[in-house]
């Protein structure tokens, strides 16, 4: 590949005007807000983010403070969602658990998008043997049922949030790698890429200016849809005992701890259960809206 040429000289010829890009962004936003349930999803996501960030201010009690004299207390004025078997305030623990869920959802998907993006780009660009090796590796990861693979990886990496984040990152990587590879294969045969090459642009320059902007849309759509499922997966692993370890609060581990008290104190399960369900539903709506907004095929 020939040496790279100054970016400014080349960019003037092919990059569309800023106003056109701006219009496109507004079109995407208009399409996204047209989805009926998007506002609900956005509100849920916004509330979840605020709650996660302001957990120390919003939680009425210390989420770890035990009060054995007030265990299994019904929901009431003092404890809106009741207390658990050792007298901890369920609402405070649900509020702190929001942090764990959001971190798990966003960080594991970010790890997967980054790793998958790089691997997919490598496979699509290099082609040949590198493509074969990377894609067979991704097929091998996809040969395991996701939760079973996450469980096995979580087991060897050790219980705790870091292990879960890495395990979920690995599980979701192939999806992003396949997406990115597909985009690279499609973009690299386009005329404007040939033109860029003829003008002496380097492979890296083409990847940064043509492949990445084109691949960004499907990656963002996939990421937004994956976050909800990553939150569910983290809750499942925490429920099984692999996630954040007690006494720290996570929705999955709270539900597991409460299932022994389902008869006397169902609120221990249903408080975090409702938070988990509403968050996942909201994120699904947001994901759908982002897909509708960014996928122009839906507007045809």
């Amino acid at each position, binding site marked *: 590949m020939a040496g790279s040429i100054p970016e400014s000289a080349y960019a003037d010829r092919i990059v569309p005007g800023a106003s056109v890009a701006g219009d496109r962004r507004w079109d995407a936003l208009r399409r996204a807000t047209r989805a009926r349930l998007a506002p609900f999803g956005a509100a849920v996501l916004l509330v979840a983010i605020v709650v996660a960030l302001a957990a120390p201010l919003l939680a009425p009690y210390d989420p770890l403070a035990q009060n054995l004299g007030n265990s299994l207390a019904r929901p009431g004025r003092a404890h809106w969602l009741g207390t658990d078997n050792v007298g901890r305030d369920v609402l405070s623990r649900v509020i702190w658990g929001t942090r764990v869920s959001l971190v798990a959802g966003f960080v594991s998907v970010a790890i997967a998008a980054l790793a998958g993006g790089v691997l997919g780009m490598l496979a699509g660009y290099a082609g040949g043997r590198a493509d074969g090796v990377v894609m067979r590796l991704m097929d091998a990861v996809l040969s395991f049922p996701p939760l079973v*693979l996450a469980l*096995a990886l979580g087991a060897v990496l050790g219980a705790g949030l870091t292990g879960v984040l890495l395990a979920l990152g690995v599980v979701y990587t192939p999806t992003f790698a396949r997406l990115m590879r597909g985009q690279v294969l499609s973009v690299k045969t386009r005329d404007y890429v040939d033109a860029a090459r003829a003008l002496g642009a380097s492979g890296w320059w083409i990847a940064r200016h043509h492949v990445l902007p084109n691949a960004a849309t499907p990656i963002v759509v996939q990421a937004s849809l994956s976050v*909800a499922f990553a939150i*569910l997966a983290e809750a*499942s692993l925490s429920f*099984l005992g692999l996630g954040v370890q007690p006494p720290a609060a996570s929705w999955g581990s709270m539900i597991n701890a409460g299932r022994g008290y389902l008869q006397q104190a169902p609120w221990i399960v249903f408080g975090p259960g409702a938070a988990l369900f509403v968050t996942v539903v909201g994120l699904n709506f947001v994901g759908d809206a982002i897909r509708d907004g960014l996928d122009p095929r839906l507007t045809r």
Partner: protein
Amino acid sequence: MAEVVVRRLLATVPVLFLVTAGVFLLLHLTPGDPVDAMMAESVDAGAKESLRRELGLDRPIAVQYVAWMGRLVRGDLGRSIRNGEPVIENVSRRLRPSLQLAVLAMGISLLVAFPVAIVSALRHNTGVDRAGTTFALFGICMPNFLLALLLIFVFGVTLRWLPISGYLDPFDEGWPGLRSLVLPAVTLGLALAAVITRTLRSSLLEALGEDYVRTARAKGLSEWVVIRGHVLKNALIPVVTVLGLQLGTLIGGAVITEYVFALPGVGRLVVDAVFARDYPLVQGVILLIALGFIVSNLLVDLLYGWIDPRIRLR
């Protein structure tokens, strides 16, 4: 068709090789010494050394891998370090409850999804349709373990209609055995039903707009004949694809369901092995589950080609 099968089988070979290598490396991903992770600190050094020798961990990793693959090819998946039994025996003992759960769940999901999707599609954009799509959304977003606990709370704890945990083999115990599987099967079946409903509804809507449906109606065929003979047959293809894609989720769901309902199946075995840090058992069971998953996906692919001649001809 034979050529497709051979091509598909050949494509599986490198993946199988990588899967076995991945499962082998699982043990070596453990931070620190895997033997220390498997045995308590109090266990004396002699016992640890003996386990290290038994697992071959005292040899170079390449030698370990060749020896492990050699045993694998002969069908030896190793032994559990807890009960000393071969992995195959551990799994075969647990296979029956898992298969019964899977078959029942699949049956429930089809029984629920087909009527809901058909009614939703026929009454498109009405209250019935909205109820159907809400059900689908509810099922997709509801975590398996939460649905299980909801069902336990309503039908086990409050109404006391069904047992909330434990397992009796329906083939030996009859009705009490079947009752022990109802709640786990409904838990697993509803999640799958939601996904099938969503897919089938949209493919039915697409098929209902086709010219051949208008022609069938114009011929004077009854609505039921049109649905059964023309619409449903064409709408089934995406459902098979989705079923294939959902297999992994179904297996994951089975792990959680068996754990919640204390069902002694393969899923429960995985969780128990993970928490007992019985790594040889974890390796063996994960490998068998992955092989089962690969074979099922292969069958779904072939089934897809068999249902839709256009794919076979491609």
